[in-house]
């Protein structure tokens, strides 16, 4: 089922690969429709932010103790979102966005880039529940689902500016950052996979450039 999921981006890539021609694919038609309605394309607010990555122990979907940020982020580029497994409204959309990113990242996932989903309801979201949730999204290694002691998870969320006292009211937001350089950007609202991917590419690109010059 999930394999049928096609984002604008991957549909575009596929089309380009297969035909190397202009195919009437999704983003084009969507854009056309929006243009027809005479509406401005939607804006998503993003900006660079300062985050505090508290050094704590969390649990991943396999129940393994992992050190945040050491084991979890390390020196990688990461995209972080928050969710809870019993959420019906916002989280499935966030999940779909990460699922799409996972597809776009291909074998760069885990090696270079990680997707990190942190639960905002650690009391309910115990590792086996996360494992089941991860399986629903066909998450591959490199897409981590994290939980832990409530106090610890709250501290992590606070540090990255994604804590809500009422977890059911957590706003949709993403953080894209580089574990090495400490450069972080927050996307507030539903960013598209393309917007997130663009940031990821920018960060990994900078590294490549930096690597050459040094």
């Amino acid at each position, binding site marked *: 089922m999930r394999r049928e999921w096609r984002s604008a981006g991957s549909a575009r890539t596929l089309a380009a690969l297969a035909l190397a021609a202009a195919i009437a694919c*999704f*983003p084009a038609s969507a854009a056309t429709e929006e243009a027809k309605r005479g*509406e401005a394309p939607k804006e998503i607010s993003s900006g660079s932010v300062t985050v505090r990555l508290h050094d704590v122990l969390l649990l991943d979907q396999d129940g393994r103790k992992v050190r945040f940020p050491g084991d979890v982020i390390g020196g990688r580029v990461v995209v972080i979102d928050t969710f809870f497994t019993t959420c019906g*409204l916002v*989280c*499935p*959309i966030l999940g779909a966005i990460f699922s799409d990113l996972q597809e776009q990242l291909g074998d760069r996932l885990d090696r270079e880039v990680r997707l990190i989903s942190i639960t905002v309801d650690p009391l309910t979201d115990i590792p086996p*529940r996360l494992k*089941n949730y991860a399986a629903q999204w066909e998450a591959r290694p490199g897409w981590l689902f994290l939980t832990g002691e409530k106090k610890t998870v709250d501290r992590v969320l606070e540090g990255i500016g994604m804590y809500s006292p009422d977890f059911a009211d957590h706003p949709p937001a993403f953080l894209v950052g580089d574990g090495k350089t400490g450069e972080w950007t927050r996307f507030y609202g*539903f960013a598209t996979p393309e917007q997130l991917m663009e940031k990821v590419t920018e960060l990994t690109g900078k590294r490549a450039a930096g690597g050459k010059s040094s």
Partner: protein
Amino acid sequence: MRDSFPRRALCGILLAGVLVAGASGAGLGEREKKGKKIYMEGTGRKKITAFLPGAGIRAPGAGFPCVNCHLAGGSGQLEGGVRSADIAWDTLTKEYSGKRPSGRAHPAYTEESLRTAVTEGLDAAGNELNAAHPRYEMAREDLDDLIAYMKVMDSESVPGVTDAAVRVGFLYPAKGPLEEGAREVRTLLSGYAAEANARGGFYNRRLELVEIPFDPSVEGAALAAARTAVESEGVLCFLANIGIPTDGAAAAYLSRERVPVFVPLLSAPEGGYGADRYTFHVLAGIKDQARVMVDFLSESLNGPANRLGILYAKDASGEKGAEGAREQAEKRGLRVAAELSYVPGVFDALDAVRRMGGDRVDAVLYFGGPSEALAFARGASGEKGNTPFLAPATMVGDALRAAPPGFLRRVYLAAPLAPPDEGTREMADLQRIREKYSVGDRHRSFQLLAYAGAVLLEEGLRRSGKGVTREKLVGAIGNVWKLQTGVTPPLTYNANRRTGAPGAAIVRVDPGTGRLVTVAEWREPQ
């Protein structure tokens, strides 16, 4: 891709015609049933796709069914700063010129404008819906089914609930070894219902017990009884079903139909995460009992028992026990020094004694049947040593009473149902019902559990309020914390927990009097 949609929709219009069936009393018509499936599961006659404008992604409709956000009945909710609208038909079609709760102003919806909302994400005034609202691509037929259902969903009748009564099913074997216990429970439950009704019932509804017997020697009879209760008798939920194995077809059917079941007797599976969401147990499964046994060993014997032996039958219960013992041993810093499993019925007692007897281990944890336990006891009785032998009482039963006295001194049993405090109001109530309705008293554990189930159901009905539904009932019980039933340890349930009192007491048999003596009070594993 999307360009092709209007053409498909047009075909749909031609094909679907004007087939919109009205709601036929209590039940849903074919059309509404199909619409309900779309609403609940996101699947229709044809493929349904959800386009998520916020993310620019297309996904199968099954990932984004209406009910996720708008909830059953269409009431809507607030989550993640997004308010999903109340989409009950009455609300949608209300004439109102001001701003709606969505912050937008629009005229009343018509069927046509509702179709546009679902497929194009525009409200009745042409305003864009929230970016979190998917735009659905679906066949016109499916869309019509969905709208047919939306028209009736807020007045859809709840199974087993009328203005006058709440109907609760009770499945029981009318023959076989469980017959007598079932008769006692049936008499107790009907007495309980009579008493509850004399007190005024629940929200002015009578509690009606729908008793469905089945013949346990006939294959499929339990499933047929469950079907009858759900499909013909119309029950809200079940209470204290007897002889319905957790892994059987009847239990699977009830789970699939999302019918709540309270305290099924003689089935204590592992009730942690992964357990059936709709079934509520009271007593610990073998795994949790094993964990309490290890906790007891690590604290209560002379010094920590460093070398554990695990002896278990190769069946579901035996393996669960061994798993729980291993996990807890690791947690408590104990070492599993010997492990031996056997196929039930094929047990070499002497070999087992050779490996676990004497002082080769500091304690034996046993998870198997009664006859093998007794064989081990006889085999080990000639040996010196005082190695404790621990087993769940629910697995070995009374068998070890026949063990040689020298061995019996070493036996500790885990008992998931601690002897109740006779002084509680509920115990007095139970005793009164027992006498008043001539319940009998041969199956006290059954009675205690059935009564605890009734207390739990009563709590659920009160918490769910007048508008009780199956989901509300399950949600309400899923938040019960330390409910005092007076006849069992306090019950607690949550999203990951479907066993209310997953603990055990440790008891032993006094070799002199033959009575059970509690050596460690009932507690949950740490």
